[in-house]
């Protein structure tokens, strides 16, 4: 609701006279717009600095601020991107990120959908307790889980050398389930019960109801969850560091970027390009599917 629009849209009588009150209202309107635009521009400056610097040669970055690049002479170059893709292993790490993120999103969403459906529409002893316990596990800081799981993995040989990314997929599934079940169960529970009753009358079995009725109706919630989970995993550093390690052949783009921060030090021409490359996929996903992402956040502000 635009209050200032109402306040600043004068009635005919007011518009005829320039009164102190109407001047004040106009002034407040202008101040508001200036404040909004100023804040937004200031907010964008850190990212803008990164973007512009990624197109500048090393000597320029080392000696002048990025804002200098905005005035002639213009020295923009694509060399940084070329170098980072060819020599710093970024292509491979982008691929690793996909290899980790996609299955690690599919598995928890599916497992959570099965469980959420049972929690919402099936009766069994201990249902409420188990649900609360499952969601309550959101409290557990992941740090508590790493050491025992990692030693178990080593003992049974579930290492990146033997099994690739399976270890990290399963770990992300375990960590992502409390939030996923919570989100989906909330949605499933809100489905009208007549839906299920009429399906039962028509003789539909559990599988039919799940795949033909519940899932199609739940596309918005599932989309939100998929995007949320995908972005969370893609942007994750710690879990990848723990279960996949830092070696270049298996590192996802976050780990690789962290490695580059250490090895390149002041090489900001390459670092900025690498950072921006790591941001492209999430930004594309985010901008095109923002609606769903926001819905996911609003549904549960508890994901840690």
């Amino acid at each position, binding site marked *: 609701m635009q209050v200032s629009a109402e306040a600043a849209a004068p009635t005919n009588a007011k518009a005829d006279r320039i009164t102190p009150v109407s001047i004040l209202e106009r002034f407040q309107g202008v101040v508001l717009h200036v404040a909004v635009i100023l804040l937004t521009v200031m907010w964008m400056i850190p*990212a803008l600095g990164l973007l512009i610097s990624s197109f500048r040669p090393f000597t320029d*970055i080392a000696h002048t*601020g990025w804002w200098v690049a905005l005035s002639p002479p213009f020295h923009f170059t694509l060399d940084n991107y070329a170098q980072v893709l060819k020599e710093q292993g970024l292509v491979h790490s982008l*691929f690793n990120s996909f290899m980790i993120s996609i299955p690690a999103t599919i598995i928890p969403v599916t497992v959570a959908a099965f469980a959420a459906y049972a929690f919402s529409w099936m009766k069994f002893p201990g249902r409420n307790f*188990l649900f609360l316990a499952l969601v309550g*596990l959101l409290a557990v800081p992941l740090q508590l889980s790493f050491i025992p799981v990692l030693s178990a993995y080593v003992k049974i040989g579930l290492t990146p050398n033997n099994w690739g990314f399976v270890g990290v997929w399963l770990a992300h599934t375990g960590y992502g389930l409390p939030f996923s079940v919570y989100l989906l169960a909330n949605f499933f529970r809100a489905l009208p019960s007549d839906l299920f009753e009429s399906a039962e009358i028509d003789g539909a079995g559990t599988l039919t109801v799940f795949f033909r009725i519940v899932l199609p109706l739940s596309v918005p919630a599932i989309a939100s969850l998929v995007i949320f989970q995908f972005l969370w995993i893609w942007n994750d550093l710690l879990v990848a560091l723990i279960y996949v390690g830092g070696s270049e052949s298996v590192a996802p783009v976050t780990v690789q*970027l962290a490695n580059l921060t250490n090895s390149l030090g002041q090489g900001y021409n390459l670092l900025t390009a690498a950072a921006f490359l790591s941001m492209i996929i999430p930004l594309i996903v985010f901008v095109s599917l923002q609606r769903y992402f926001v819905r996911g956040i609003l549904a549960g502000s*508890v994901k840690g």
Partner: protein
Amino acid sequence: MDVGLLLSDVVTLVVVIVAVPAVLAGYIIFGEYLVRLFPDRIRGGVRPWIWVGPALLFVAGYLVFPTIATVIQSFENAAGNWVGLHNYAVQLGNFPNGGAWIAIRNNVLWLVLYTLLVLFFGLLLAVIFDRVPYESIVKSLIFMPMAISSVALGVIWKFMYTYQPPDTPQTGTMNAVVVNLFHLQPITWLSDPNVNNYALITAGIWGIVGFSMVILSAALKGIPTDLLEAARVDGAGEITIFRRIIFPLMMPTVVVVGTTLVIFALKAFDIVYVMTAGNFGTDVLANRMYKLLFQAGNPGGASAVAVVLLLAVVPVLIFNLRQFQAVESRR
């Protein structure tokens, strides 16, 4: 770049994308087939366990048992022998500067400043953006930092904080402002213990204000407009309306967002790891735990720190969940 290798990797990815859902669908279909083998009466009792089984197993294996194991391990030394509270004594000894106390102090700093400032800015932006017609565009722009990884955020802000010696042109945005606008000496933002924690917290705030703004904005728009109209008709000024109507009505949401932020602050790892690796007095608990485990080879100490983290987070989370239920039930 070995194209052959890349192609075979892509094939692997496609196989995985197809195989994983197929396996899971196969599981549930096979499960239903198993259930049908039982007499009609018992089916309803057996079926739920097939559906919740995988979730329960995952969660037990990755969250429940490891937590218990970590708590136990915090009482053991690296060789696996029971040492009682020794690890805790080492981590929590030598107050105020020894063991984990610097990390704890920093986490408290994060907890207070990060939470309050993110709430403040989120609220401010939600309120003023509400009053402009191009609201959705500016909100998207403020929200965008949430899409990027903390590592990328760390690079952005490390770059912002670049230090060049005095009398040379500054290349970092912050020092450019300090030197050119305020005519002071450039600051070593990340290595000076007097400012570096605040520098890190600022970077963290930039990344998450969008989150708080979006939720607070939704709560703001949930306030019935007749209420606000009535107040305006009665002659109340905007500030009074905010203090007496808007803010109190938003309080439950503010509390939920605030407690969520406290939990994030307690778990801060990526930003500190990338920007300072916890050096120069910027250590936080999550970082300390990582270092104890992977650099010092001290799993007992790392477990003790993790337990301390758990003890700090659990009460906040319980409070958070209760508040969230309260907000939900009001809808």
